[in-house]
Structure formats: C-alpha cells, structure tokens
C-alpha cells in the first residue's frame, strides 16, 4: 500500500539569495509511526527544512517526498495529508479558539458538520473545551500552543510537522505538550517530524534524531544508540594531592580516555559503576585521597559535542551571533 518510509529526502538543498546556504544536501528517511527529530542550534537549517517539506519553500536542489508525493511537483497532495504546527503562534487573536479551528477546517474544505465534531474532539484532546468561546488573545502561551496543535490535526493528517513545539514554554507546559505528542503517536499511529534545540526534548520524545549543524546532517540515529556510541559513562573526580595522576588512571582497565582540567579528571569509561571503584582503589593504594567523585551517563549534549565540536549550550549562549544569523535568515526568507 504505502512504503515504509513516510518522508524521503535526497540531497535536499536550499540556498537563499544565491549565497546563503541554509540547508546543504541533506538526505534522510522518516519511518511510519515514528517521532523523528531534527536537533540543532538556531540557524542550523531546521525550520528551512520543515518549510521545504511542508511546501512553503521550493528546494534549490535535491528532492523529497511525503507519502510518495513529490514536495515540489505535487504541492496540493502533500498539503492535504500533512498537518503543521508552526513555531509562531499563528492563531488569529481576534477570533475565539473554536472559530480558529473552524477556519482551519474550512481551509481544508472539510464540511461544516464533520468539522464541528472533529473540533470538539480535538478541543477535548488539548483540554481547551472550556475556553473554546474565548478570544485567543486571552490565552496563555501553553494554551495557544495547544490550539495550534488542534488546528494542525483538523484534517487528520498522516504526518504532523512540529517546528520547535515547546519553544518558550515553561517546564510544566513542556512536559504536558510532550504527553500530547506521545498520545498522537501511540493512539493514532501518526508519524511526527519535529525540530528542536532542546536536548531533553529530543532525548525524551524522539525515536530517532538527526543532528543538524550548518545546514548539514552530522549523524542520524536513536538517542540511546548515539549515546552508547560515545563509549560509556563519564566519571569525574578530584584528588587532594597536587600531582598529575592521568597516567595512573589511564592504566586502569576499561578506562578509555582521561582529561585533566584544573585539578579534576574527566574519565570516559565503559560500565562506569564497575570501573569507578577500581579507579579509586588504584589511587588509594598509591596513597592518593579522592575528594570528589561523580558519575554521569553520557547525555545528548556529549553526543552533540562529539559530532559538532561544540556544546549545544555554548552555541545557544552566543546570543549575539545567533541573533545576527536569525535576522539574516529572516531577511533572506522574506
């Protein structure tokens, strides 16, 4: 009936104004029923990719298909089978929640009686039933996001595209949004494509992620696999003495790498819970005193660091650079 791959992209490229390459020959597949995440810093090309897939932008090069419909040639077929939850709050503030959903339904040409029934179901799903007749301008950020979700689902899409679904939401609302998304996947077997620059989100929600940086995909895989591929846990310890014990630690079995930073040691080791006591034992027999010890399983941040050479948080912190880039992208898109 339909191929296993819901979204297929091959060498997808977007160049703005002939010199700004936002997306650079990326290829990936999204399987039926999975949550596929694009993880990367702002300006990495995530939104541009989504905009190409939802037919708002024409690719400069390469091709992609959604449910075997070509995104460049079969615009309308693609638009019919997808739902979109954009980054911005796009609901009309002057209309009520219900009016907004009905407007979306009208845009898909859904008959009024069907639309009303679906709207009520969706409002219930996103817990906005009590607010359906209130103007959207009175909604909180979380409510608006949920309304966007409901609008994106009105045509019962086979694939839902979510662009930074929890951007700017507080932790509680973010967790709630994740639950809605999980429900969609579990109960309706929907395929979801989302972008995010939150590591926790990618880690918690996505079945597979693609890390994207400077318009290129650097790695694709399941979050767990990516973390394991780094080779084990990270043990961090400090000793009282002022001696460099890197070589001593390195000689311990299962230790893969040691880095010393300001008197503390960052040790990469397989099966940290077994290796850590061995390291302490080795140090103690030589007469050193361990003052601090901590162990972490590798996080996506480490994966990210490993593949892109910079921490996602660092990338986040260079606010100025990010803003400039974003402005450039905006102008280019306009």
């Amino acid at each position, binding site marked *: 009936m339909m191929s296993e791959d819901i979204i297929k992209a091959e060498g997808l490229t977007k160049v703005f104004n002939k010199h700004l390459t936002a997306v650079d020959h990326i290829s990936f597949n999204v399987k039926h029923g999975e949550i596929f995440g694009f993880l990367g810093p702002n300006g990495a090309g995530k939104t541009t990719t989504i905009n190409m897939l939802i037919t*708002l*932008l*024409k690719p400069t090069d390469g091709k992609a298909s959604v449910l075997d419909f070509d995104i460049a040639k079969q615009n*309308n077929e693609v*638009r019919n089978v997808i739902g979109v939850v954009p980054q911005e709050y796009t609901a009309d503030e002057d209309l009520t929640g219900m009016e907004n959903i009905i407007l979306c339904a009208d*845009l898909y*040409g859904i008959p009024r009686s069907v639309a009303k029934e679906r709207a009520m179901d969706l409002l219930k799903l996103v817990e906005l039933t009590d607010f359906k007749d209130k103007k959207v301008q009175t909604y909180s950020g979380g409510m608006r996001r949920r309304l966007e979700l409901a609008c994106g689902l009105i045509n019962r899409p086979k694939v839902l595209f979510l662009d930074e679904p929890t951007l700017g939401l507080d932790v509680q609302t973010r967790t709630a949004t994740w639950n809605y998304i999980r429900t969609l996947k579990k109960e309706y077997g929907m395929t979801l494509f989302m972008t995010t620059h939150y590591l926790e989100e990618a880690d918690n929600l996505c079945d597979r992620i693609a890390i994207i940086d400077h318009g290129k995909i650097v790695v694709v895989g399941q979050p767990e696999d990516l973390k394991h591929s780094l080779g084990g846990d990270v043990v961090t310890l400090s000793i009282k003495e002022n001696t460099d014990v890197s070589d001593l630690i390195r000689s311990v079995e299962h230790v893969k790498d040691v880095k010393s930073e300001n008197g503390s040691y960052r040790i990469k080791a397989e099966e940290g819970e077994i290796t850590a006591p061995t390291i302490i034992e080795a140090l103690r027999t030589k007469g050193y005193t361990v003052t601090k010890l901590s162990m972490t399983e590798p996080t996506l941040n480490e994966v990210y660091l490993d593949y892109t050479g910079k921490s996602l948080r660092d990338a986040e912190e260079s606010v100025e650079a990010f803003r400039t880039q974003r402005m450039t992208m905006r102008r280019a898109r306009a």
Partner: protein
Amino acid sequence: MSRTNGHHVSRFHGIWALTKRELKKWLNEPIILMMAILQPVIWMGLFGKAMNLGNMFQSGNFGNLSLPGISLPGYALSPPYTSGNVTIPGAVISQGFQQVLSSANFGPSIMQNIFGVKDYFSYFSVGMISFIALFTTMFSGMSIVWDRRLGFLNKVLSTPVSRGAVIFSKVLNASLRSMFQATVVLLLAAVFGLQVSSTFSVLNILGVYAAVFLLCLGLSSVFLALALRSTKWETQMAIVNLINLPLMFASNTFFPISQMPPWIQAIASVNPVSYLTDAVRQLTVLPLDARSLMIDFGFLGGFAVVFSIIGIALSWRYLTK
C-alpha cells in the same frame, strides 16, 4: 488516525472562509466599525459643509464695492462723437455688479457651471465614496504584511487553499467593506441634505455598488501586489501614502478636473479614481449621461480585470519561494 481525505477542496470555500475571517475581525471590533461610520461624518461635516463654495459668490462677500469711475475718450463712443472725455461714474458700475451678485442664483449658477451641482456639499459627499474606497483598499495591502509577520500567512499556505484565494479574499474583503461604507456615506449624505438629480432612482444605488466593487478589485490588487514580498509594514505605509494622495488629489474627488492645469488633467484622465467618482456622481447628483457612464464603467472594468489578473499571477509567483 487513518483516514482518507475524500472532500473535494473547493476554491471558493477557501476564499469565503478567509474573507469571513477578515469581516469577523472587523465586525467584532465595535471601535473599528464606529470609525467606519464616524470618518465619513467628520469629513462630510467639516470639509463638505465648511467649504461652502457656492456661498462665496454672493454680494456680501465682495464687501462694499467701490469701483473707480472710468473715463473714456469721447471718440471711442459711437455715436454721437463728442470731443473731450466721457466719465462713467464708479457708483454706476458698482451698482450694476451688485445687482448681478445679489441675485440668489449667482452662486448656485457658478457652481452649476463648474461643478455641475448647485451646492458643494452634494458634489463632495458623493466624492467621499471614492475617498473611502481608496483608503480601505490600501489597508488590504497592510493586512497581508501583518499576516506574514504573525505567521498566519505561512499556516494558510501550508493548507491546500489556492494561492489566488489568499489574495482574492483580501480583495473581496476590501470591496465589501468599501461597499458597506459607501452605503453609510449615502445615508448620511441624504440626512445632511444631499440634492439628488432628477435622473436618480433607487436602482442607481446598485450601479454605485458595482462601480465601487470594480475600483476596489483593481486598487486592492495593486496594493496587495506591492505588499506580497514585504515584511515591514512601515515600508508598505510609506509606499501607500506616496500613491494615495496623488490618486486622490489628481482626480475629480474634491474639485472638477476642468479647473486644473493641463498636466494634472492628464493624470486625472487616467486615474481610475476619477472614473469611479464620475460614475457615482452621474448615478446620484448629476443628470445621467448614458454614454459617459458607459465610458466610466468600461475604464473601471478594464482596470479591475488587468490588475486583479496581475495580482493573482504575482501571488502564484511570489507566495511560494
């Protein structure tokens, strides 16, 4: 959620849904609606009534005329030929003028000759309809800039709605608003003392609507085409202001074209606003001349067709990049 989207997506459905959205926004906001009514009242009341042109040409307004006597050489008069000068006393000349000016018909007849109607209010209040159409359409360009900025445009474009429908709904919205305001203007003008011509009938109002619709179709498409790529409403505002004032003043909205210098007359003769104003005046305050009314409608129709096609063609080209 497995489903088949069996609905046939009608092009018109999208147009109407989007138009309804804009109309709803408009009707839901009592202040905007009030402004739509107040604005013509203020303009008609202040401008239309204050500029009482007809009244200017009255004896009182010329003050106490004291003209000097005119001396003519006797040989210039014929006959009898006399030598020496003959003097016509100033008082006699003044009296003659006063007699002409004091006639109650003097002002109105000047108005009649230049403006075609007896009072400026009737002339101007109907011109207000063009004025309103011009300013309502300019906001349609503005609103697409806002839709783009707020992300609404992108959301609509990711649905199967035709790109042309996005543009056309805005055009339709501007036209419907203008037609509503035209009704308000006509009603208010009637209250304030509009003097309709002998050829006026209620059916003519339909003609007014048709003319307003055609102008709005064309103008709104122009403003939307200008706004298609724009993300800054400030730019849009500047462009619109640059276009609107010349369109308004280089037309017969406020004053008759016949009294303008030739170069303005040239602009006014291709200005669609002139044709709308003329059509509306003929249908209301002026005696209807079928031939010139047909020219008006021909021009407006051509303008509407050409520019709405350009607008929709551009929307296909530029709404997807």
